[in-house]
């Protein structure tokens, strides 16, 4: 009887295990099926106002394959201002290998830019027959971002101010997240402890500069960066300011510009120059001396007494 009960328990657990295995197998199949399905191509348009440069528009074409996005290259995209009318065409781009294309706002757009405070940009792409056309738009407000530094009780502060154009005036914008950072080679490094700082009612966000020993150039100059990143209303804004808050670092001499055995010919090691030229001058000096000796023999033969017998 006891054995029968044990068998029942084992059978019960076995059923549970088989059910779980089947369920897991179906789930994996479903996930794999989802992973192998590719979505339609997406078109995205973004606005950028980089520091001291002309504003530009960037389009991105991508496709979701499985659970990640992959770039779609070689997609022709027309970019318009306001509506898809040939008169409003700002430019045409073809997306590159990372699925991106970019145009600067053309000089002919200046009057429109100066006269308006809000802009709508439209991106359209006519794909080959059988595929749906792609379209995307973005509406941005004209805004300006500035960065400055202050010193409060010996504490260095970095401040950024965001203003938007309202009528003919620039008015502060509050509650906008922005990055306050130091520009480095690969990415920007936040000046303080937080990644983002939010603007107050005066449109100003500020952070204490805590990167005192950060290496700068040979004069200790570093570049502070304020950045509004992918904002729905204002797009992407970046501004910069150079300050001498860094640690002065003498630039390293270019690896290949040093006097080494693998350097270019003008950077030959001194010891090698002395050795080779020393030997060459020594030997060639001897050769020249010997040629002079031959000339001397020749001269003696011309002017000296004639010997009959050799």
């Amino acid at each position: 009887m006891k054995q029968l009960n044990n068998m029942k328990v084992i059978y019960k657990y076995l059923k549970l295990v088989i059910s779980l295995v089947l369920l897991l197998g179906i789930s994996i199949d479903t996930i794999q099926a989802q992973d192998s399905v590719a979505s339609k191509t997406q078109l995205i348009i973004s606005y950028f106002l980089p520091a001291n440069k002309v504003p530009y528009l960037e389009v991105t074409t991508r496709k979701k394959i499985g659970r990640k996005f992959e770039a779609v290259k070689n997609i022709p995209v027309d970019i318009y201002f306001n509506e898809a009318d040939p008169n409003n065409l700002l430019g045409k781009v073809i997306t590159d290998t990372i699925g991106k294309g970019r145009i600067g706002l053309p000089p002919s757009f200046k009057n429109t830019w100066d006269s308006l405070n809000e802009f709508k940009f439209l991106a359209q792409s006519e794909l080959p027959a059988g595929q749906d056309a792609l379209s995307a738009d973005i509406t941005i407000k004209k805004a300006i971002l500035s960065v400055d530094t202050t010193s409060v009780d010996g504490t260095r502060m970095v401040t950024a101010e965001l203003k938007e154009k309202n009528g003919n005036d620039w008015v502060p914008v509050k509650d906008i997240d922005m990055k306050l950072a130091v520009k480095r080679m690969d990415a920007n490094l936040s000046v303080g402890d937080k990644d983002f700082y939010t603007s107050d009612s005066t449109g100003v966000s500020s952070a204490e500069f805590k990167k005192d020993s950060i290496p700068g150039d040979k004069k200790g100059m570093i570049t502070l960066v304020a950045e509004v990143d992918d904002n729905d209303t204002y797009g992407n804004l970046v501004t910069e300011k150079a300050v001498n808050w860094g640690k002065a670092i003498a630039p390293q001499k270019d690896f290949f510009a040093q006097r080494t055995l693998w350097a270019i010919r003008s950077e030959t090691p001194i010891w090698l120059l002395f050795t080779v030229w020393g030997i060459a001058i020594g030997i060639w000096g001897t050769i020249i001396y010997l040629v002079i000796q031959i000339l001397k023999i020749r001269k003696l033969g011309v002017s000296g007494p004639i010997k009959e017998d050799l």
Partner: protein
Amino acid sequence: MKNLQNLSEDQITADLLPQKFGRRGKIWTAGLIVICCIGAFAYIKQLREGLVVTNMGDYASWGIYISNFVFFVAVSLVGSLITAIFRLSGVPWRTPLTRIAEIIAVSNITFAALIIIVDMGRPERLYFLFTHGRLQSPIMWDVIVITTYFFLSLLLLYITLIPDVKLMISLKDKLGKPFSKLYKWMASFWQGTEAQEKIRNKSITILCVTIVPVAFCIHTVTSWLFATTYRPGWDSTNFGAYFVSGAFLVGAGAVGIAMFVYRRVYKLENYITDDHFDKMGKITVMLALLYLYFNVNEFLVPAFKMKEEEKAYLNGLFTGDYSIMFWFAIMVGMIIPTLVLINKKGRKPLPMFIAGVMIVVGAWFKRYLIVTPTMLHPLLPKYNSPLRFNHYFPSWEEWAITIGSMAGVLLIITFFTRVFPIISIYKTLEDKHAITNKNETTEQYESNLQVS
């Protein structure tokens, strides 16, 4: 040397003066010219179509041209051995061999320089070597040292020739006109005065002292072209000595061949005697054993360790694709000549000639083995390369140019022999005086002359 006692001065002069080509000489010269022309044709084809006519590729980017270059540089070293080292060490029997060694040196170093230009593909690149060359590169050192050695060898050849050429000017009636202008330009000023003689002797001594280190440099630097590169077979600190010892051996072998041929063709038995073969044979044995010693160092130690990256290369040499050539070069180029020449009978003219041929042929294949197997075994993995890049066998153009260059070397020696005495008449007469008058060595005779 004692044979000279029985010969009159006129007889010596007549025997050693350059002779017109006979029938065999003309056929020999014509044959060499034809081979050179075929080589020149192949080179023109290479110039027109580029290095694509060769079978060199991404891996074997140095092929038969560089092997040939190393071979020529090696043979050219003999000039310093016979002329400079023998003179400075007071070897009394050197006279009949010095000029043979000098012209072998000049002709080989000339073609060593030319074959490098052939290997460059586009000859104007030589100019870029001077305008853009880096002094840090051993290739640049090689260019400098080859040019220097060429001029030193040429100077040595010229200075030792002066009295003989003057003698030939005085024998214009006997020799005819063909080269009289050249002779006059070269030595009409020579009167053999004490002052001239003094300067000439001093110059030869300076040249001999200078040429020895330059000769060592030339082949050491050539070895560094390989040894400064991190590759299986080349990554060796032994390479300089290994190359120099090999060069002396092949040079001695080449002189042995030339001694036999000149003696036989120009009937110079009274001048290049059995004694010369005997002594030269002993030197060759010593050099062969020395080179064998460096070969043992060069191959036994890496074979003992059998490092992973050198395994394929070493196995290829010992038991693989190149094993027949490798063992041929070791046996024929070193061991068999040693066994032949170690016996007194083996140091007779004919065995010495055969041993010389074996040494020279073995040495050429040895240079091929130094270059090609290493090139085909790079340390970096091979990716996406055509299958043919894994092997190298020279194209007909490469063979034609290489054989043409060898014919060119022989042609220079042949023409030189036609125009100038291959054994110094002046020095032979001096030797005769030394033997007949005082029964002393030439050096003692010369010093006595200076004292008097």
